[in-house]
């Protein structure tokens, strides 16, 4: 009878319990401990966006591709190399590469030249990234359509339980955008201090973190550069820092990552700093 346990309790049986590594006390956390000297090596970063131009000098190579297409009944997954339809994916890739130069970039192209099916493609691209074993996902996009609330919520929870942080841009307009409003994701909006490693924590969510996103010099289409403003460009700053943290501390859960980011935010009055 001792074998009988309530559902979902097997992981907590005495002989099944896993011993975990401690993390330092919150007051002892430093940027040096969290990501100092890390290059993001070995961490797979999915950029779910408009594609990436591997030959843009800011991008420095792309390690994997998938382009989602087709209809809801017959989705297609094309893993041959592709380019960036607009420049938006290059911008995100360039920022992440500048912070985590040795991370592995995967371009998940869900934004193309049309409107048809883009919500479905977005969800399918996110599912692909989760199933393909990405370590971090950068989502500088979202959907404001209620139709996608459920499916994106399910995917955000799935990613959370698999310890894959989804770093998601908040809407640039005052309306909720999914999945940025879900508690399971790392949501990001923009600040105007031109320091790529400076980020803030917002004690009054849904948007939890702020990073540089106003007048940011970013990679764009055809090898060009522009200075752009949007939460889209704040998001990859956090994704890049997360990639560096994960190189040094693989296996962190999403809630541990958020705790570390919260502890190291520039607006936290730290003891002795």
């Amino acid at each position: 009878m001792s074998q009988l346990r309530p559902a979902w309790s097997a992981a907590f049986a005495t002989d099944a319990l896993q011993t975990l590594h401690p993390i330092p006390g919150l007051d002892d956390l430093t940027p040096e401990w969290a990501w100092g000297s890390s290059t993001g090596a070995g961490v797979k970063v999915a950029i779910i966006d408009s594609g990436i131009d591997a030959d843009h000098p800011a991008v420095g190579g792309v390690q994997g591709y998938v382009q989602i297409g087709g209809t809801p009944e017959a989705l297609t997954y094309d893993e041959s190399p592709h380019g960036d339809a607009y420049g938006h994916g290059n911008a995100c890739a360039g920022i992440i590469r500048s912070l985590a130069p040795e991370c592995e970039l995967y371009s998940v192209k869900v934004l193309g030249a049309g409107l048809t099916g883009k919500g479905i493609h977005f969800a399918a691209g996110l599912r692909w990234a989760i199933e393909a074993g990405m370590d971090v996902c950068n989502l500088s996009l979202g959907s404001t359509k209620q139709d996608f609330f459920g499916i994106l919520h399910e995917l955000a929870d799935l990613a959370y339980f698999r310890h894959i942080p989804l770093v998601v841009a908040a809407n640039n307009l005052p309306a909720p955008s999914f999945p940025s409003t879900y508690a399971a994701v790392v949501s990001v909006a923009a600040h105007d201090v031109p320091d790529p490693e400076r980020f803030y924590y917002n004690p009054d969510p849904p948007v939890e973190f702020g990073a540089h996103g106003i007048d940011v010099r970013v990679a764009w289409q055809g090898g060009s550069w522009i200075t752009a403003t949007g939460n889209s460009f704040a998001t990859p700053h956090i994704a890049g820092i997360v990639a560096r943290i994960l190189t040094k501390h693989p296996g962190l859960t999403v809630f541990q990552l958020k705790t570390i980011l919260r502890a190291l935010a520039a607006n936290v009055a730290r003891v002795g700093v």
Partner: protein
Amino acid sequence: MSAGAEDGALAEARATIAQQAEEIERLRRRLGEERLAEELRDALSLAGTAAVIAAPVSHTRLLELIVETAAAVIGARAGALFLIDEAAQELIFEVAIGPKAAEVKKFRVPLGHGIAGLVAVSGQPMAVSDASNDPRQAADIARDVGYAPGSILAVPLVAEERVIGVLELLDKEGAASFSPDDIATLGLFAQQAGVAVEQSGTRRRLAGLLSGVLGGLGDRTASPSDLQDRAGAFADGVEVDPAYEDALSLASLVQEIASQGDRERMACRALLEGFAGYLRTRPTAGSWGTGLGEAR
């Protein structure tokens, strides 16, 4: 008075004049904004009156008003408005204001093109501040309107969760870039404008349908299925709305009469033309209730 004191008084007077000029400019702009806002409000409320079938020119005027108001409130030297043709997956360039506006003709571009295309596809606003510094940016739509702006702010026009177009402002006055406040303000404005554009477009499609039906009455070659297709296309474009259902049933009634034969068709046409002629001579374009009983 010493030279020093004189200089001081002069500087003070200059400062006062500058301050007054600034105040006048501020008031002038406010007045301008209020006049435009009033005009826009009128246009918006007109667009909301589905029973009024206006000429297409008022639709264009509404689009112009949207760009003019946005440019005046935000402070931009030029602006443009694009609507999306979902079937063709293209942006239709509708109106422009600014230095090169007169030279610009209506044109279409694929959605996968430039800042406006990105905003249309992502539904997210975006601001760019050094657009003219890089010649490789020539692919942007701003260049297609014959204008090389220093800064761009583009926001989506949204109606019922759907992006229906893009409002783009070019060259922020007095600054190198549009601010995050500008993005928020223009974003809110575009949400209101999107609804007005959608309503106005529906009204225009209704006008097109009715004129198509009436025009078809004089054309022996127009097949009934043509009209049915037209009515079907129209119905696809609007959500279920009692006002449009009325119009559709009127259209199908006319079509039914016309399909009976030449004499029936001509009689129907004569009747409708006579009634339309009477309506045109009425002193006011008010509603049925107030208009019919009034005589001069």
